């Protein structure tokens, strides 16, 4: 097998999975990424991985601290909403695994935590399958910490001494519940660099885990931490800079970075995500020069080579009705219906090859793909598969 020089653009779930698979298959891998993508803001819940993961997937999941139970997990979120998931960051509490379940939810004099409402939510959403009760653990946090953001508390708990104190206040409180309670649901605090749920579970003798929170949760921070460790371990070359242009240079693909660097390779794996620092530009319609067509994400990324096309639902972005281009109403969504925005991405045929001519040197994975389901599981699975296809090409 000839050695491949692969550029992976993006280091979210998709880019990380692809880089991992390529590197362990002997490719030289360069990862280019900038700013936080969806995965870094993600809440630790994995959808889009139904069934049993493949061996490669299982291996990667465990490297990323994600557990995939044999049947769907039940996770409770900060608003007291219970929902199923195919897998999850292993610090989250799977309520379903704690049968017969009496879940304890601490109450705290803390603005960002309404233990009563979360417990009430669990009771209401579980329809009698689980019970939940609140317990007051006033000294769980130091007075100064009460107003900290969740992420800051999670980082603080990486410190051994602070963690010991935290564990002590829980042990004391839980002693009286040991025989009745099956699980303890905590805010999203259980460490960033030293995930703490499992050791705590052992120490307390009941299931312990975090609630699934919203944006920029500890789970996203843990992902970033584990990813960076993985890249360091694999010896992947990482360029932290925004890619501003992709074009071809003879036989190779060339990325121009904001830092001024040029990164070239024989192959490109596009995993630049769907939005946060995404990089799609809707081509202008030649007939309309007056008003630029709708642009999104980073308008500065130009796709100088025409091997990447942007569109939705298998077609280039249509210019419809309005004389000004695609109307925002078409792109946007309400909660009720689907919208173009969700489907917007790089066009590719079913096999992951780009729209128009299937090009063996480019593959696309994750949210970057038009019509991707936009789940963690799909991005991870897609990253591995796209890497496999590049290797087979």
């Amino acid at each position, binding site marked *: 097998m000839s050695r491949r020089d692969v550029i992976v653009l993006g280091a979210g779930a998709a880019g990380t999975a692809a880089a991992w698979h390529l590197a362990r298959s002997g490719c030289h891998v360069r990862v280019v990424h900038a700013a936080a993508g969806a995965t870094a803001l993600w809440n630790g819940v994995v959808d889009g991985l139904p069934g049993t993961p493949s061996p490669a997937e299982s291996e990667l999941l465990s490297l990323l601290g994600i557990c995939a139970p044999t049947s769907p997990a039940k996770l409770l979120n900060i608003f007291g*909403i219970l929902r199923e998931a195919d897998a999850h960051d292993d610090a989250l509490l799977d309520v379903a695994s704690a049968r017969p379940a009496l879940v304890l939810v601490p109450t705290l004099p803390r*603005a960002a935590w309404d233990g009563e409402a979360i417990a009430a939510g669990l009771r209401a959403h579980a329809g009698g399958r689980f019970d939940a009760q609140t317990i007051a653990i006033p000294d769980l946090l130091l007075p100064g910490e009460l107003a900290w953001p969740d992420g800051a508390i999670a980082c603080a708990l990486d410190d051994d001494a602070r963690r010991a104190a935290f564990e002590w206040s829980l042990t004391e409180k839980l002693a009286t519940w040991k025989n009745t309670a099956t699980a303890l649901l905590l805010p999203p605090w259980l460490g960033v660099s030293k995930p703490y749920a499992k050791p705590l579970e052992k120490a307390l003798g009941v299931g312990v885990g975090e609630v699934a929170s919203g944006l920029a949760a500890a789970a996203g921070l843990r992902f970033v931490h584990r990813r960076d460790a993985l890249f360091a371990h694999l010896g992947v070359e990482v360029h932290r800079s925004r890619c501003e242009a992709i074009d071809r240079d003879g036989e190779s693909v060339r990325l121009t970075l904001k830092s001024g660097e040029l990164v070239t390779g024989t192959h490109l794996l596009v995993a630049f995500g769907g*939005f946060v620092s995404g990089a799609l530009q809707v081509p202008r319609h030649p007939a309309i020069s007056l008003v630029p067509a709708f642009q999104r994400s980073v308008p500065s990324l130009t796709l100088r080579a025409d091997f990447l096309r942007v569109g939705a639902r298998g077609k280039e972005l249509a210019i419809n009705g309005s004389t000004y281009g695609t109307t*925002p109403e078409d792109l*946007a969504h*309400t*909660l009720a219906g689907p919208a173009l925005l969700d489907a917007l991405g790089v066009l590719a045929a079913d096999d992951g090859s780009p729209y128009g001519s299937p090009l063996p040197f480019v593959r696309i994975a994750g949210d970057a793909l038009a019509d991707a389901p936009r789940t963690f599981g799909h991005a991870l699975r897609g990253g591995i598969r796209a890497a496999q296809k590049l290797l087979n090409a």
Partner: protein
Amino acid sequence: MPAPQPATAHELAHASVADVVVIGGGVNGTGVARDLSLRGLRVVLFEKNDLAFGASGNSSGMIHGGARYLAYDASVTAKSCKDSGFIQAVAPHLLFRIPFLMPLPRGAKGRILLELVDGYFKAYDDYQPLKRGESHTRLSAAEMQAVEPGLATDSCGGVTFDEWGTDGARLCTLNAVDAARNGAAVHVHTEVERIEPIGQSDAAASQSPAIPRWLVTARDATSGAVHRVACAFVVNATGAWGPLTAALGDVARASLNVRPGKGIHVYYERRITNFAIVAKAIDGRQAFLEPWENMTVIGTTDDDYYGNLDRVLPTSEEARYLIQAVAQVFPSIRRARAIGTWAGVRPTIHRWGRVEDKLSREHEIVDHAVAGMRGVISLIGGKLASYRLFAEEASDFVAHALGVNRPCQTHVLPLPGGISVPNPRQLAEEFSVDSIAAQRLVFRHGERARPILQSLRDDPRNAEVVCPCEPVLGAEIRHVLREEFAFTARDVSRRTRLGLGACGGMRCALRCGQIVASERGLSPVEGMRQGLELLETQALMRRPILDGEQAQQEALHRAYLRGLLGPSPGEGS
């Protein structure tokens, strides 16, 4: 049209009794309800949606002194300015100054215009003291540029003039709260379905004017409960809905000459200028950009509207029309981040054949005695700026008809919270809350900010900043649920501006639903539904302005919600 059936004896036996039923919880309805209850009358107010759901909560929010009337009747300007002064006196916390800049185009025409405009505002200056306004200033092109560097550089100079801004939803809420304090019964989410004669003879009625002549039937949308009120007088204050409401009695719709004119606004995530700036749209109509509360708003359009009044949606064409107009005078508006829109329908008095914009915005009391319905009036037209005066005139009419001769007091008695304006910085320190949160709280609640903050001492969780964009504290949410007729997450949003900021409710709507559920003893599932309903409304209103940065926000929003709720059916794998 068949005459409405007189009420049956059975219906009457189950009716409660009041002097006046007011229909509509806009600024005019709540204004009349307050005025009449202060005069000692027993008032019942029905609002089918929420207070300020209509034009009153979707206006440009300006309390202007009526400079535009100066050209044809200076006494109207004087009256407007005086009433603007009264509103300031009774709700000092709820008004903020909006200094205007009016740039004029370069060239001979512009220079002539500048002379005219300068003269015009010189005349307006005479009325400014009535509302604590500053006199106008004439500025050269260079001076204009110096005070607002964002202005386009192609003006020959211009003038400044001074107006005030307010929050229409707060104004309605405070009027309703005060009406209730003075004995009125206020029912929101309760639609009036019928107005029937009770069958008193005119002779009997003229002997004792307060005798009930009308039976008003209304239905509570949440519980389905039916309210029947027998009353002597009915005030139809349903704005653009006016003709529909009058038709519930026996008034032909066409006899109420209301022309519904739809107006939209686009708003931006922050204040990008400290001046309101006057612009001209491509069709010559006036448009403007204004710093409003903690954001920037551009407005407004005026188009005939015959769609559903309970669901008025802006379009991207309307939004573009405004942005294009404002960009002429303030080019960088195109780079600002639009985060939402709102739309309302003006109840404008109908005059045939005039250009829409020139229709009179004046108000009119229509006495339906002419149509055989003695004791029913409709209020049409009006402005936020003149609501108090309009309410006073209507209340005089009603009081006179009912033989009550207590005078109006709404120009001297403060609205709730309006006795004094506490220092927000002091409050912030005293209660250890964010000073911006304290400032916004004082803006909305005046001296009632203090008791709201006191609840932080009972429960530290009340200090929770539920909506970080506005910001809104948990304590305020509980307050509006307990004291201000808020029943749903959307109602809370209208009263507090929760969820209307840059993140579109992403961070606060579901939490707000949770608090509503716990306050009102509803199931958490219902709380979640209400949170989602608020998010859905906001998403609908954002649709016309989605662009660039906002598109990213939209995608993030969607991802966040999917993360919380799980993929919707058919999605996810």
